[in-house]
C-alpha cells in the first residue's frame, strides 16, 4: 500500500468513529436540560446582567466569602461539646451562610454531607430583591461538600467555590471549610 492508501485508511477509521452512538440523542437532550437549568441559576449571565453593578459585586463577594476559607458566621458559635475519649472532632457548630444567585429559579435548596444530600431538608430563601437565594446552616468545623439543587432536579456546584475532587456519581460538588475554634494550626 502507498502512503496515500494508508492515509485513506486512517480517514476511513476516522469516519467510522464519527458514527453517532446508540443513545446519543437522549444524552444530548439531557445535556440541553442541564444547560437550561444551569442558565436559570447562573451567576454569570442574565442574573448578574440585570443587577445594579453594586449588587452584583456584593452578591459575588458574599458568595466568595462562603466558598473558601472559614465561611461567614452570622452570630457567635456556641460550644456544645469537647473532645470525646475516642478523639472525635470538635463538635462546636457555627452558622455558615450559603448564597446562590438564580433570578429565574422557582426554588433552590442546599444539599451536602451535613444534611444527607436531601433536597427537601434545607430550602433556601429569596433575598436581595428576589435574585439571590440564601440560607444559614450550623456546621461543625472541618471540610464539607455541598451543592445546590435548582427546581428540584438540577444539581449544580457553587460557581464561586472550590471543586470537590471526588466525583462518585457523575456531578461535581463544591467544598467549604469551616474553621475550628480550637485549631492550633490556624
Amino acid at each position, binding site marked *: 500500500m502507498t502512503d496515500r492508501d494508508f492515509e485513506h485508511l486512517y*480517514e476511513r*477509521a476516522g469516519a*467510522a*468513529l464519527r458514527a453517532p*452512538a446508540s443513545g446519543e440523542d437522549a*444524552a444530548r437532550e439531557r445535556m440541553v436540560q442541564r444547560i*437550561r437549568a444551569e442558565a436559570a441559576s447562573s451567576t*454569570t449571565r442574565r442574573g448578574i446582567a440585570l443587577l445594579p453593578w453594586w449588587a452584583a459585586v456584593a452578591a459575588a463577594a458574599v458568595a466568595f466569602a462562603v466558598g473558601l476559607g472559614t465561611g461567614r458566621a452570622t452570630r457567635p458559635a456556641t460550644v456544645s461539646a469537647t473532645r470525646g475519649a475516642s478523639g472525635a472532632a470538635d463538635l462546636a457548630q457555627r452558622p455558615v451562610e450559603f448564597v446562590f444567585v438564580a433570578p429565574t429559579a422557582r426554588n433552590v435548596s442546599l444539599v451536602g454531607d451535613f444534611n444527607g444530600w436531601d433536597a427537601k431538608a434545607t430550602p433556601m430563601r429569596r433575598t436581595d430583591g428576589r435574585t439571590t437565594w440564601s440560607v444559614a446552616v450550623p456546621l461543625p468545623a472541618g471540610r464539607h461538600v455541598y451543592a445546590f439543587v435548582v427546581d428540584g432536579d438540577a444539581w449544580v456546584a457553587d460557581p464561586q467555590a472550590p471543586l470537590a475532587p471526588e466525583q462518585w456519581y457523575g*456531578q461535581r460538588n463544591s467544598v467549604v471549610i469551616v474553621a475550628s475554634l480550637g485549631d492550633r494550626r490556624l
Partner: protein
Amino acid sequence: MTDEALVARAVEGDVDAYATLAERYYGSCARIARRMLRNDADAEDVVQETFLRALRAIKRFDRGRVFRVWLFTILVNQCRTAATSRKRRQLRFTDDETALDRATDERPTGVVEETSAVAAAVDRLDPLLREAFLLKYVEGLEYGEMATITGAGVSALKMRVKRACDALRPMLETIYHD
C-alpha cells in the same frame, strides 16, 4: 446560523443560542470523550461538565477565537482530569457498561461492527497518541488548532499522530481487508 452569530448571541445571554451551539457540538465532544475515557457513562458526565463550564464562561469569551477550539480545550482538560480521577478511584465499570450499550444498540449491524472494531483498535493506543489521532482524523482539526487545545507543540503533535497511525495500521488493515 454560523457559530460566530450564535456565540455573539450567547455572550449577550441568549440561552437558546448557546443550547444550539451545544447541540451542534455535542456529537463531536461525545465521541472524543467516549474514546478517551472508554466508558460511555463517564463520557456523558464529562461532556455535560464541559458544556456547563463553557456556559459559565461564555460571557467572557473572546470573539476573536474559534468557539470549537475553545470548547475542545475545555473538553480535553476535562477528559484528562476524569481519566486520572477514575484511575485513582479504581472504578471499573467499563466492561459491563460498554457491553450493555452494545447489546441494546439499534444501529445497523455492519455499522456497529466496523465502529466497534475501529474503536477497539484506537482504545489500545497510549492516551496522548489516541487524543492526537482523534483530533486529527475524527474531528479534522488543523495542527495549529490541536496545539491550542492540547498545549503541545505542533512538532510533538505530528509525531504523536504518526506514532498513532503506525500502531493502528496493522489493526486497520485487518479490519478493512477486503
